[in-house]
């Protein structure tokens, strides 16, 4: 199977639009959970080499300390992970919105992290699956770490993959100091399958 080093303009556009719809559905659920308005950005779609991975993720979220949860998904030959990176300075506002107490300990912060991750990761994976007509299996989420610099959360030394397609969505909440990044990471093999799946959407 040939390497995927870049996406065509049409492919990038298509992934962006599919993500746009999925993250809209995710934002709607978060908005209803927290009773807020979630500001939707234009998603970023990129093919990333492994040696650039840490740097790229770091550049997306430059907070000194973050907490992150990731969840695997797989179906119809497409596999990847949804990685939610939470800027630690967001916790006090999230706590207020979720009606947690004013003083948070690490355990309560984990509760909030999981509450938000369940909504955003779940809805996004489901939303993409619906559009591609795939019923993804979702694995149990894993906490990559709490209150750590982002570079410590990711282990790229033991990784076996070469490149990944990363779709980055930066969620912010209007009038609140809440900032998190949802990054969808697809394996290179999945991108081959997905390019085939979306080709019918791109036909004239």
């Amino acid at each position, binding site marked *: 199977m040939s390497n995927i080093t870049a996406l065509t303009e049409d492919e990038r556009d298509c992934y962006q639009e599919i993500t746009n719809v999925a993250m809209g559905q995710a934002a709607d659920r978060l908005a209803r959970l927290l009773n807020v308005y979630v500001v939707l950005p234009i998603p970023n779609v990129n093919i990333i080499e492994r040696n650039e991975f840490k740097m790229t993720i770091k550049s997306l979220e430059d907070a000194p300390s973050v907490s992150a949860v*990731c969840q*695997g998904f*797989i*179906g*119809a*030959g497409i*596999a*990847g*992970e949804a*990685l939610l990176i939470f800027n630690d300075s967001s916790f006090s506002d999230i706590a207020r919105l979720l009606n947690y107490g004013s003083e948070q300990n690490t355990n309560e912060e984990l509760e909030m992290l999981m509450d938000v991750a369940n909504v955003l990761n779940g809805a996004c994976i489901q939303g993409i699956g619906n559009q591609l007509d795939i*019923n*993804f*299996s*979702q*694995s*149990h989420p*894993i906490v*990559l770490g709490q209150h750590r610099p982002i570079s410590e959360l*990711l*282990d790229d030394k*033991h*990784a*076996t*993959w070469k490149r*990944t397609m990363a779709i980055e969505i930066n969620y912010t909440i209007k009038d609140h100091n809440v900032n998190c990044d949802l990054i969808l*990471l697809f*394996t290179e093999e999945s991108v081959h399958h997905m390019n085939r799946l979306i080709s019918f959407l791109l036909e004239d």
Partner: protein
Amino acid sequence: MSDSQLDMTEFHWLMDILQTIDVGLVVLDRNYSIKLWNGFMENHSGLRPDQAKGKNLFTLFDEIDENWFKKKAESVFLLNIRAFTISEQRPYLFKFNNNHPITGRAEYMYQNATIIPLNNADGSTENICLIVYDVTNSAMSKHDLQGIQNLLGSH
């Protein structure tokens, strides 16, 4: 709602649950031919139920050591008991990719498995169910812990 309607609702719930649960479910007959293949198995193997059903388990998955597996399964057929395998014996039964392909360190999915007898009305066991659990996380933690223990022990 009548009892039979209730049963049908529950039946549909159960079917949804079995399809969605993060656990692999495979029913095999006496000849190790696949009779049931749930969503977990479909998504991780890439084989749809229509591609798996009716096929021999060992033909489809040559990574499974036939003799080893049969030794466990035959006791389930014959003795009507459950059999368990853990990832320390063999890291996996089915060679599936790690559920966290990008952030994960493991090359493949570590698995525990349970084989349970499915009894006929007369009590005989014509079919067995293979239940596959993803234990990659705990396997990796154990691996890390052992590494630390070895390090400490050597001092």
